[in-house]
């Protein structure tokens, strides 16, 4: 039996839409440690047209700080490590730099099968180009109009859902016919595939109907009954399609694949893997969430009872997608989170400038706030899409609120690189509105996706890197649920830490930050009043628990759930400013 090669050094890379991040892990005194990291603009576009170039640029920064040489003069990575700090033993990459899969969804009922198909598509990097629903809403569409819609959208795939198991056949088959016809009208080289994920009893007829006019694959019915959803098979098909049609076609992908024993993965998939891995290390009665806000996409990964639910908005990040969002939903969607007046036109101007220069960063505080406002909306929008597909079980005491989460892992430059940690914490609290007691963990180095791969192939290394401080605690949050008059005391908190202690009374509507730095622990005694629920077993239940400090301290978010945002513009801006001050932002 071959002896396993020892791995003393690992190079991890994440090729994002805008930036490529590289991290060097090394065994130091028998334990893996994060040694150095580098970052450079991604090089998918002209003049580079090669993702490997961006990796080399990012690794150059590591070379400069460590003296290690990574590449042969030919540009190939030196693997395994040679004497004299040359090369590395292992390499792993995650990639989100490719164009999302362009999808047209077709189904019978917008709120049922189409909605499930939408969640299936959100399991991979995708953009929904058009939705065809046969439920007569908005007047429905004639076959000719449907064919035109598909033809104009020029998608990579048409995902057809619809029909509960054993349900009506004709409406589903007419969608299949329209999709096939539209597909056959598109030139062979760009002809979209068909994915049938509807009533499985129609499969045979669908196969016959499509014939050789289009390429067809089938998946399990995404909506087998009115109340049941089954996305696994359709998600796998779409994800595979994304990898084949988009990821593997990135310029330079093949060269990068050769450096790695494990094929480069979509960033969101690896991110989800890490979140699932972290769930095993925490309180399994609760869920765990992972949020990754990128320049062009937003990922929400949730794990309940060990099951992972990954949802990606492949068309909405803090750089790309913002302009379309305000065009569709109005600028106030974003400006409502700003502490100062910013007109709709000015907002649009700032969003266009971000797209023109995607690698640039805000130097003006108003532009910084806009980025954070966009992050809030990107998370909220993705969450809205994700939540109906979750199965949180006992972790969800209130159906209309977020389930109880032990930990929320937060990543993406907009959150990891805020000037003050309170801004990142407030962005997450506003966007997610967690309940009970939750720890916010910040992925400051953008390591989470790559560690997802490491956790798969070398779990010990992932644990050691996590233990060595790859992530930092952003805050511990206590968010009571209940109703009271504004200002009325709803919670008494008594904290003991080291040799100190303090007590504080929390009024309804307060956002209180108590100093508890990272590395410090405290025992919290929480005594809710007026039947408020702090996640200790139900309304009015008090208890003690040990919590960890964070960069933003211990935050008592008693603003209420769901969060109330004043309708009056001036009051709202003053409220936003107050909350920013409260968290030290």
């Amino acid at each position, binding site marked *: 039996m071959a002896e396993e090669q020892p791995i003393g050094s690992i190079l991890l890379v994440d090729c994002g*839409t805008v930036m490529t991040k590289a991290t060097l892990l090394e065994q130091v005194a028998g334990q893996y440690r994060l040694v150095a990291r580098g970052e*450079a*603009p991604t*090089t998918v*576009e*002209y*003049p*580079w047209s090669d993702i490997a170039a961006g990796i080399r*640029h990012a690794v*150059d*920064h590591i070379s400069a700080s460590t003296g290690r040489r990574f590449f042969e003069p030919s540009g190939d990575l030196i693997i395994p490590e040679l004497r004299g700090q040359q090369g590395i033993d292992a390499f792993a990459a995650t990639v989100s730099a490719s*164009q999302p899969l362009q999808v047209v969804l077709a189904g019978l009922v917008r709120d049922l099968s189409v909605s499930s198909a939408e969640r299936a598509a959100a399991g991979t990097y995708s953009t929904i180009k058009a939705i065809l629903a046969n439920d007569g809403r908005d007047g429905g569409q*004639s*076959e*000719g109009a449907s*064919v035109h819609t598909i*033809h104009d959208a020029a998608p990579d795939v048409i995902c057809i859902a619809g029909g509960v198991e054993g349900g009506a056949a004709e409406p589903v088959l007419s969608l299949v*016919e329209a999709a096939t*016809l539209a597909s056959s*009208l598109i*030139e062979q080289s760009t002809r979209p595939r068909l994915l049938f994920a509807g009533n499985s009893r129609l499969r045979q007829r669908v196969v016959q109907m499509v014939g050789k006019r289009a390429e067809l694959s089938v998946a399990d019915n995404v909506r087998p009954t009115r109340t049941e959803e089954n996305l696994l098979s359709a998600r796998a098909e779409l994800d595979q399609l994304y990898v084949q049609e988009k990821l593997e076609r990135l310029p330079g992908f093949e060269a990068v694949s050769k450096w790695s024993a494990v094929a480069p993965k979509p960033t969101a998939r690896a991110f989800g893997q890490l979140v699932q891995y972290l769930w095993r290390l925490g309180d399994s009665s609760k869920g765990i969430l992972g949020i990754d806000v990128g320049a*062009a996409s937003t990922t929400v990964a949730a794990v309940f009872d060990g099951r992972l639910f990954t949802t990606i908005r492949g068309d909405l990040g803090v750089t*790309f997608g913002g302009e379309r969002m305000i065009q569709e939903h109005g600028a106030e969607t974003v400006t409502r989170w700003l502490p100062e007046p910013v007109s709709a*036109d*000015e907002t*649009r*101007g*700032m969003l*266009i*400038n971000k*797209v*023109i*220069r*995607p*690698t*640039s*960063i*805000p*130097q*003006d*505080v108003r*532009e*910084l706030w806009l980025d954070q406002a966009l992050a809030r909306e990107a998370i909220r929008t993705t969450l809205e899409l994700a939540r109906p597909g979750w199965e949180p079980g006992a972790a969800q005491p209130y159906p209309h609120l977020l389930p109880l989460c032990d930990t929320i892992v937060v990543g993406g430059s907009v959150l990891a*690189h*805020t*000037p*003050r940690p309170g801004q990142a914490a407030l962005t997450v609290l506003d966007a997610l509105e967690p309940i009970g007691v939750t720890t916010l963990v910040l992925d400051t180095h953008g390591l989470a996706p790559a560690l997802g791969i490491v956790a798969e192939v070398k779990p010990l290394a992932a644990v050691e890197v996590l233990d060595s401080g790859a992530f930092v605690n952003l805050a511990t949050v206590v968010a009571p649920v209940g109703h009271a008059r504004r200002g009325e005391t709803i919670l008494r908190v008594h904290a003991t830490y080291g040799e100190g202690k303090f007590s504080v009374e929390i009024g309804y509507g307060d956002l209180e930050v108590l100093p508890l730095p990272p590395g410090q622990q405290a025992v919290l005694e929480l005594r809710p009043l007026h039947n408020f629920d702090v996640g200790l077993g139900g309304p009015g239940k008090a208890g003690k628990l040990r919590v960890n400090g964070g960069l933003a301290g211990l935050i008592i978010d008693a603003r209420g759930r769901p969060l109330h945002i004043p309708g009056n513009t001036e009051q709202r801006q003053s409220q936003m400013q107050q909350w920013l001050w409260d968290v030290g932002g």
Partner: protein
Amino acid sequence: MYYPFETQVAPLTTVRRRRMLPAPGTVGVRIGDQVEPPQVIAHAELPGDFRIVPVARLLDIPASRVNRYIRVKPGDDVQEGQVIAKRGRLFASTVTSPFDGMVTASGGGRILIEAHPTAFDLRAHMYGTVSNVLQQHGQYYGVVIETPGAVVQGAWSAGEESFGVLKCLAETPNDLLEAEAIDPASHGTILVGGRGLSDAALERARQLQVRGIVVGGLSPELVPQAEQLPFPIIVTEGIGVVPMSGPIFHLLMKNDGREASVNGHMQTRWGIMRPEVIIPMPADTVPPAERQPGAPLGIGARVRLVRTPHAGKVGTVVALPVHARRIETGIRVHGAEVDVGQEAPIFAPLANVEVLR
């Protein structure tokens, strides 16, 4: 090493541009031919529109019975208004073709009619010499045109392609282009402004049928209007009121009165396209080829700062500090010290520095 974003501002270079057909077609010029902007250099036939005619529904009969009433078959040419299906004699129900085209399929009670292909003429868009004809597997895709000239890349644009005489209406990069400055002599020209233009100026330019506008900035309120203009508008710095960068302004001023080609096509991802102004020039000797982007940022580089509060300022990199520094928002970043002609150099994040090459 940091590899910054780059913008081309070249006073004299050998400009080479590919002119591509949207589909394979025929090329009407040969290598060495001199071409002019309006000249058609290649041609292609593009697929026409299509229509699914629901014959069974229109005749109010089941799909299974429709064949006996259909008067056309796949492959038949049809004219707009031609009867393609008819039921009954005295008070017959008829279905007619919606346009001229060809029947390409029928079945399920429907007829698919595809319109005749539409002709697409590719024009040269610039003065120059054909340096290559692009073909693959015996199919022609386009040509490469080459000319000595100046190039300025823009940051944002709306509209398509155009050409005309450059007419500079600003005296400084900070001037705002007002309607009064646009006189009837502006008809058919490409106007060059400073930091932006007014709503009235935009309307006046439209009325006088100018062929293009090049400005430093554009107020966000004017973006929707700019997107509807019948001519291209190129913004060199970004959205907002931003003075045009000195090097760009002076290059355009110097070429006031020369003919220029303006390309308003812009794509920010998945095959980036940037708007540009090309000014062909006579040259006794062949100027150097366009400098390829992709060099690391170094001391002495001519750069433009791209984010507020320094957006549009141009200067020279005088230092690349090793350590990160705090910027206006409070974050610490690596940056460059840029001499913009003020008392002290400005420290700007590397991410917000763009090389002008």
